[in-house]
Each structure stands twice: as C-alpha cells, then as structure tokens.
C-alpha cells in the first residue's frame, strides 16, 4: 500500500497519524509540504530514521528543490512525477489529505 502525505510534520499531525497505520511493505510518499519531513537534523528526523528501518520513503524531487530541503535524511528515495505514477501503479493508494 502507498500512503501519500502532503502536510508538514511540524505543523500538522497527519504524517504522525499515517505512520501509526503503516505495516510491513507499506510505502510512504511525501509530496508538497510533506517533504519537509525529509530534512535531516530536525526534531522530526529521528522518527523518519526509525520509519526507514521498516519502510520505503519517497519524496518528489520538484518539492524538495522548491523548498531548498537539504540535506535529506539518508535512505529516503528521491523520485519524480513519473516515479509517483509508478508507485501508484504498483500499490493501492491512500491520500492523507
């Protein structure tokens, strides 16, 4: 299953709530302000590092570039909109809007 999250984890509890429902094999895709969770050295980054031990986490490159998010946490995969489409093709989807 693919979980899509578009909110900042610093402002909104959406990502934290989403992560509670993640199971073995769940893929997480961060888009829009959601990519702020991919920044290293923040109060949220240990939660992401923990998540990466069990789950794949992707971010949209255009969203990372737009926000100047750097450096990103080791292990997070950077993809583009075509990669996003491929993830949707491979997995059932839930959007945590």
């Amino acid at each position, binding site marked *: 299953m693919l979980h899509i999250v578009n909110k900042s984890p610093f402002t909104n509890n959406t990502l934290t709530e989403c992560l509670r429902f993640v199971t073995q094999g769940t893929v997480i895709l961060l888009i829009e302000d959601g990519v702020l969770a991919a920044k290293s050295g923040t109060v949220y980054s240990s939660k992401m590092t923990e998540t990466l031990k069990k789950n794949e986490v992707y971010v949209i490159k255009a969203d990372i570039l737009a926000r100047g998010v750097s450096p990103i946490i080791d292990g997070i995969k950077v993809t583009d*909109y*075509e990669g*996003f489409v491929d993830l*949707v093709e491979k997995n059932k989807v839930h959007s945590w*809007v």
Partner: protein
Amino acid sequence: MKIAVQVIEGPYNNQASDSAYHFITAALARGHKIVGVFFYHNGVINVCNMAKPPQDDRNIQKRWGELGRENGIDIVACIAASKRRGICADHVIEGARVSGLGQLTDMTIEADRLVTFG
C-alpha cells in the same frame, strides 16, 4: 491502468492543483488512462474561466481546460459544492463541466486507482 483523480483544494491557495496536474501529465506519458478529474470542496474553483493570474505565473484553470480538451479527459466540478460557494455557474472553463457526485462515483468504480490531492 485506469486512474481517477480527485482535487479538494482551490488553485493557487494550495499546491494540490499543481501536484494533480503534474501527476496526470506523467501518468499520460506513462501510457495510463485518466478516467476523470473530479473537483470537490474548494477544489471547484479550479474550473472558473475568469482567472487572470499575474502574467509571469501559470494559469491553473486554463491549464485544466486544455488538459481536458487535448486528452479527452472528463474534467468535472461538483455542482453542489459550486452552488454553495457561488462560483463558476456560468463561467466554466471550456473543456470542463459542472455535474453531480455521481460522476465521482462513476470514476471511482471505473478506475483501478483513485488518487486524491488536497
């Protein structure tokens, strides 16, 4: 694969419209079929044809109309949500239409995936 898209926030105010647009163009490039785009909640603002954004900016509403016309994609805004907000009644961009929630249902049933942007 057949994909339906729902957008529930308005253009410019939220990035949802942009993300949905980029996702759809990428899906088309990958050879997938977009069975429809449904606008709900403030998302209905996406189909108003009177947008005049600054000249150096994208025109999101116009872009939706073009996407619909050029690719034969059904672009639908919810009529109840439009009426409540008082917008778009006689000002729907060419290539889009205003209709009921049954359209969202049809799209969801027909598609292999529903992806919501909001």
